[in-house]
């Protein structure tokens, strides 16, 4: 101890400080924020995208960005299933992207994370699908630009249905019966995804209910939804449902590899189904759950938002305007060249020849006839609450009423925070 004290002089202190400074410098070497150097001039913008399953999408986004000459736009292509977690966590840091794709959710607006884009959208607002404008609007202001609409419905093999003597289901009961008849030792009747999350909202809509009503109050807790959950439990335990598939519902593999006869999926996968199965492919909406319900299609999709807390809000808005409002060629390319999506711009959708005939046209018709769009008031926490209802009641066999009561508690807590 005394030896230590005797050495504790100014020189030692200086050395120790130098050592710590060196350590700090080393630590700073790791500050990669994902932005490339601008070379001393111009604006750098960073945009986040989740990894699309369709080949060529990443290259397409980078091609569009490279064509923009007012700023250097870097793309971060985030793989994995937890895009939203990474996005939200990064938005709290200095490495937050200037632009990012996501779904319209009011907490993004309430927490001041997304910029008001009304001024750039207003001039072309009438050319957008009105539902896409509504789903991005809070208090009269528009907070995001829809890039693509993604209707989700069932794909099926007509040859297999014909062989089993099954007609295209129009009710959930018929869907359950069809799954049973189509199941063989090698092929399961139906694939709804490994966690069934994709069919939660369609089931609610097809039961004649909704997530929230016009006054932003709970609209999913109905007898029809409870009946639907019980039927889904029957389906889950029937042995006719494909579970634990290597790829999830959004991938065309299950139907294409002959693991199932019917698969819930999105219109984005239509070209892959057609390429593998040729004409032996058809589509139908989520069938009605109760007599008072009606078929439904979830019109998912992705929208572009500007980080309101970023350093380059105006430059990011200018890029959004250039790419997602002015460059119609790129917008059509993005919607129809890498899987099929419906362009949210009415003029582009009307001229997209790939969507005018055959199966794509049938998909567009289902979108038009039965489509339900995102509700901006339906947040991630609420989505999780209903996912838990499905986990506990459909997959685990718990009481639907009790599960919905628990979800109500979470959703009401959210609603109170968002709307008072």
């Amino acid at each position, binding site marked *: 101890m005394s030896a230590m004290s005797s050495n504790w002089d100014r020189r030692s202190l200086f050395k120790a400080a130098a050592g710590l400074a060196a*350590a700090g410098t080393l630590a700073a070497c790791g500050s990669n924020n994902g932005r490339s150097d601008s070379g001393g001039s111009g604006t750098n913008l960073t945009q986040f995208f989740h990894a699309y399953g369709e080949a060529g999408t990443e290259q397409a986004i980078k091609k569009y960005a490279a064509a923009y000459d007012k700023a250097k736009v870097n793309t971060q292509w985030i793989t994995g299933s937890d895009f939203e977690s990474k996005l939200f966590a990064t938005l709290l840091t200095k490495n937050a992207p200037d632009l990012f794709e996501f779904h319209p959710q009011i907490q993004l607006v309430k927490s001041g994370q997304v910029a008001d884009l009304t001024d750039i959208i207003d001039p072309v607002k009438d050319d957008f699908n009105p539902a896409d404008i509504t789903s991005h609007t809070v208090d009269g202001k528009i907070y995001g630009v829809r890039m693509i609409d993604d209707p989700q419905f069932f794909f099926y093999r007509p040859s297999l249905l014909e062989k089993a003597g099954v007609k295209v289901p129009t009710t959930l009961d018929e869907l359950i019966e069809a799954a049973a008849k189509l199941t063989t030792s090698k092929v399961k009747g139906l694939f709804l995804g490994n966690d069934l999350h994709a069919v939660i909202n369609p089931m609610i809509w097809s039961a004649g209910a909704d997530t929230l009503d016009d006054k932003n109050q709970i609209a999913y807790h109905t007898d029809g939804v409870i009946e639907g959950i019980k039927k889904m439990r029957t389906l889950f335990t029937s042995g006719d449902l494909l579970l634990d598939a*290597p790829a999830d519902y959004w991938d065309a593999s299950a139907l294409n590899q002959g693991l199932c006869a019917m698969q819930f999926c999105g219109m984005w996968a239509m070209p892959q189904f057609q390429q593998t199965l040729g004409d032996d492919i058809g589509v139908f909406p989520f069938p009605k759950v109760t007599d008072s319900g009606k078929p439904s299609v979830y019109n998912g999709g992705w929208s572009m938002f500007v980080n309101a807390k970023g350093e380059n809000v105006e430059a990011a808005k200018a890029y959004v305007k250039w790419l997602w409002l002015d460059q119609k060629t790129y917008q059509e390319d993005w919607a129809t060249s890498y899987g099929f999506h419906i362009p949210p711009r009415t003029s582009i959708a009307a001229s997209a020849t790939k969507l005018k005939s055959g199966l794509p046209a049938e998909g567009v018709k289902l979108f038009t006839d039965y489509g339900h769009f995102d509700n901006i008031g339906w947040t991630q926490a609420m989505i*999780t609450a209903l996912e838990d209802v499905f986990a506990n009641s459909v*997959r685990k066999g718990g009481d639907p009423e009790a599960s919905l009561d628990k979800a109500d508690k979470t959703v009401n807590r959210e609603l109170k925070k968002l709307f008072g």
Partner: protein
Amino acid sequence: MSTTTTRDLARPAPAKASKAKPRRGLRGSSTFNFWLFTGPFLVGLVIFVYVPIGWSIWLSFFEARFTVTPDKFVGFENYRFMLDDNDFVGSLGTFTVFAAFIVPTTWALSLGLALLVNRLRFMRAFFRSVFFLPTACSYVAASLIWKMSIFNGVRFGLANTVIGWFGVDNIAWLANPDPPWYWLVILTARLWLQSGFFMILFLAALQNIPSELYEAAAIDGAKPGWQTFWYITLPQLRATSTAVVLLLLVAAYQAFDEFFNLLSKTTWGRPPLVELYYTALGQNQDYGAGSAGAVMLTLLIVIVTLFQGKLMGFGRGDESK
């Protein structure tokens, strides 16, 4: 003292090096050496451990949704919310089930492997490497292999192929909580990943046991095999066993990767860290509630670790045994 006297009496011819100036720099100052080696770690410890812990405690008393710099003080509301949350409380139950199985099983398996490898007369290095190699594999990579290749629910999954030979139907190992086959998937993955590491610890301890002990025991009539193992080997491994159990318990508390990747978005089979991830970093982005849960979990780990240390005598000197 004696050394000094000796030098005084018979001073050797000074070496050439001794004419050099007093040593400075790296070898000249113990204070400098102390800071050189501990400074970077100390800085890292403060920045990456103590500051986040302090910040987390602070956040736990605020409403921190979508922000880590909140301004709305809510007192113990976040703590009440987490304790009222069946999922968080249930995650502690999940951990208990997991730890109750994985700690003794890994202990027994790694000790068994160490005993086997230690007895080998040839190719010992090969088998030691074979059992140790899984340690180098990432938990995420292993989880994905387990999920997509071995335990997927379709007919060409490895596990389903094997049970198919015996006429058993395909099993959905992870999607269906009843029966809870997911435990088989999770436990086998972790056993595969961590047993090799603890085997090495036991192997080192086994090789430190003096052979005289076994010879003396043999002279006293101890039978080789179980009797020798029970009365000689196992007591000699006490210190290592205690450390291994402690490490296994801490590792069980930290379980995240395989649960997160194998059981994405279920309401069952969530250990505390996965539950806190979904609360604080998942879709909910509730850093206040997540921090409250983290503080409670930390306190629990401290209590359990202290209790376990007291129970097994970890850290006691020989004189206190």
